[in-house]
């Protein structure tokens, strides 16, 4: 019998996938073709439409991991543990890509691939935390302890989130400050449209990927449990003969 939530996901995930595809398609079309270049950066400003959504989706994704970890410590639901594990892998993917696209954007604008700027360092630390998280999960054998340790690590690592977010306001940085702030929006409408569509697309894509990976982890465990039963059953029947 497959878990109720996994069946709900199977029923409704298509809406998220379709929504993500539609938003990303509009975002890509407007971002690459229909929007004008920036007055100061020229064509390379188009990298912003992929870098910024990837970056804040990874912060959102880590927040989901953070919330899920608290929930797991509280309720000890194995499905929540699966969800956390799924969220960590996907967050690592988004974080890694945010760093890579940031680096590609930095070369033509700042004139360097990498520099020890607070925003960049705190973001790289997020990737390190996630690498540690995934390593920890591989190393602990007992599933209950694995989930518990991983959840604690994810909650402690959550300290990095506000540091990343406000690093450009607290410290001297090469990285530009936030474009959305109490000062207002400092992106003109033409350039805002692709950014908003790509952002919505990335959020939906994250939700969709999270659903699928949770399903994947749950179903793998379920199948293993079945096969384990199957094996012990054959073993039992053989020894009985």
């Amino acid at each position: 019998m497959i878990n109720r939530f996994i069946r709900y996901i199977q029923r409704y995930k298509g809406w998220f996938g379709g929504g993500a595809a539609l938003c990303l398609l509009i975002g890509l079309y407007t971002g690459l073709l229909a929007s004008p270049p920036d007055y100061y950066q020229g064509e390379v400003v188009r990298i912003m439409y992929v870098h910024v959504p990837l970056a804040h989706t990874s912060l959102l994704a880590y927040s989901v991991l953070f919330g899920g970890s608290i929930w797991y410590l509280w309720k000890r639901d194995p499905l929540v543990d699966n969800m956390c594990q799924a969220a960590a892998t996907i967050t690592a993917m988004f974080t890694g890509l945010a760093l890579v696209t940031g680096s590609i954007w930095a070369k033509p604008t700042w004139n360097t691939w990498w520099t020890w700027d607070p925003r960049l360092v705190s973001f790289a630390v997020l990737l390190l935390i996630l690498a540690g998280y995934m390593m920890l999960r591989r190393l602990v054998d007992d599933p209950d302890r694995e989930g518990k340790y991983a959840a604690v690590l994810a909650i402690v690592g959550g300290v990095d989130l506000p540091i990343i977010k406000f690093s450009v306001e607290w410290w001297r940085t090469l990285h530009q400050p936030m474009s959305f702030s109490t000062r207002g929006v400092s992106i003109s409408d033409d350039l805002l449209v692709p950014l908003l569509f790509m952002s919505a697309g990335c959020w939906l894509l994250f939700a969709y990927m999270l659903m699928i990976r949770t399903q994947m982890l749950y179903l793998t465990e379920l199948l293993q449990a079945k096969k384990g039963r199957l094996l012990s059953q054959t073993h039992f029947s053989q020894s009985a003969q």
Partner: protein
Amino acid sequence: MNWFYARWGLIGGVALLLTILTYQDYHTRLSTVPLQTMPGSSSSSKLVRIQGMVKSGTLSGDVEGGQATFEFTEGPVTIPVVYQGPPPENLRELKVLVLVGHWDAQTNVFQAQDTALLNNYGYVAAAYGVSFLALVWMLFAMSQRVMVLFKEIKESKLYEPEVDSLAKKQ
């Protein structure tokens, strides 16, 4: 199962179409002609885009007002330029940039009427390529795995009651 691959085929097709459109757009809007071909060519009112660097110590005129003369260089070739147009946001010495204008064969001067930034489109292509290939590849692998898992679980109905009781114990 066939629907699954049909859907991914559609995604691949749309991605390919978008790539072709972007490449065409780049060609019509951003490609430049080599600066070396300018001297000696006949006058033409057709606008061309040339890329080069503003030579040090040659920029003069009322730059902020949209009037300037300077020497533009690319490799061994240097050509004189007269700029007349909207106030150029990006004109300074030692700057690599793109000029839009035409060659005047009578005076041997390039008449520029606009500036554009260096077309380093490769960075844009790299950023989009890397992120979308990675994300789509990950999503495809996961979706395919889930599909196979559902199928395997459905096929191994044999010990269903026992798995059920196992789930209840947990």
